[in-house]
């Protein structure tokens, strides 16, 4: 079964050109070159992909992939 982590990774790779090899559980958005402006775009893409409305400031450059998945899960994303 595809996990939230995998779906988020796919989204970052296909839409935002992040290299798949750089994506690790501890990698922060900042390290993936996703700044606060880019994260507004990521939040919109997440809304499209997962059908949940993530607030403008819920994802920050300091979030890691793991903590971002927690944010998504807390907003009701299950798989």
């Amino acid at each position, binding site marked *: 079964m595809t996990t939230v982590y995998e779906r988020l990774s796919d989204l970052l790779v296909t839409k*935002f050109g992040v290299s798949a090899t750089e994506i690790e559980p501890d990698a922060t958005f900042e390290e993936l070159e996703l700044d606060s*402006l880019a994260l507004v775009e990521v939040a919109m893409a997440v809304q499209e992909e997962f059908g949940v409305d993530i607030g403008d400031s819920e994802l920050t450059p300091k979030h890691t992939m793991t903590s971002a998945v927690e944010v998504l899960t807390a907003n009701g994303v299950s798989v």
Partner: protein
Amino acid sequence: MTAPAARPGFAAAVTGLGLVSPAGIGVAENWARICSGVSTAARDPALAGLSVDFSCRVPGFDADALLGRRRAWRLDRVAQFAVVAAREALADAGLAGTDPEGGARGDTGEVRPEWDDARVGVVLGSGIGGAGTWEEQHRRLLDQGPRQVSALLIPMLAVNMIAGYVAMDCGARGPNFVTSTACASGTTAIGVARELLRSGACDIVLAGGAEACVIPSIVTGFSQMGALSRRADDPAGASRPFDAGRDGFVAAEAAAVLVLERPEHAAARGARVRAYVSGYGASADAHHATAPDPGGRSVERAMRAALLDAGITPEAVAHVNAHGTSTPLNDDIEGKVIHRVLGDAPAVTSTKGVTGHALGAAGAIEAAYTVLAVENSIAPPTANLDSQDPDIPVDVVAKEARNLRIPAAVSNSFGFGGQNAVLVVTAT
């Protein structure tokens, strides 16, 4: 008050070129297409249903492939063009940068020990900026509400960002700005960039222009003005500068970057010099929003100022890359002014027959073509010149490229608002 005496001459070395235009991606592809004299205009699916549904597009432009998706998605098409052209120009100038340690650092991580990054400027012209993003995001605002509007709307739209993104890409940390003089923007940029070298403020300036506004709202605006050709049944024949059957311009998109360098700086690093930008003249019609001054007096002043600045006589000019938009008024007035200033001798070309009118980028790509003409001793043909307008009294190159020695050439650009800019390019 009398005019100040002419300043000592200054020849800015052109050490690199980069081109993205309907004639192709890259200098070699561009020059081959320009010399073929075959128009690039074609029906444009993005304009389907509009009163004018054809244009000149950059063929096969894949920003993800050229720049990487990670870089490309944040940039409007106009900045994508500029960055691609700038990278080619830097590589052409021997400034591609490779070593990951020491020296200047752009955010691509390349390093260029050949330059002092604080003395490298970027001056690009653009008429409209990131219009495609604006149109798209405005639609999102209306259809989906404010929360669906991209946070990158402003950095993608604002006209200054074109030069900003080029600097970020290569680590040029000197003066950085965009000139906007409508269809003369790219020419103005090159003229002003040369002044930055002449004053000693910069060693190198990446100069040129970019435009990517072949989108429904902008094309409709030009169409409603009556500026565009209506030759919908024959798009390839629509851009026909100086031809008796011309009826308007064909909208195009493009970018060009010239690496301009102080001649001493170019010599010190052993750079190959393609040609020199030796003169610049500018003027305003102060006449009308969109119509040129029928007497062409200000256009004439800009041409004469450029010759004076270059310290050359009209007889030295063997080739003119005309503004030649294919509009009835421009070509008539420009042809007469060229004749008045330069006489019968020069071989006159409008490369817009091939490329269409790339608006704020037009002067930049045409300066690049003028450099190539001087360097290769070739005056390219004017596409679609089947029957030259008898009222236009100059020697327009038709059908085939003409081999001739070109010690000096002139590139004209005249913008809406009556903003005129002229460059003189001289041989090495």
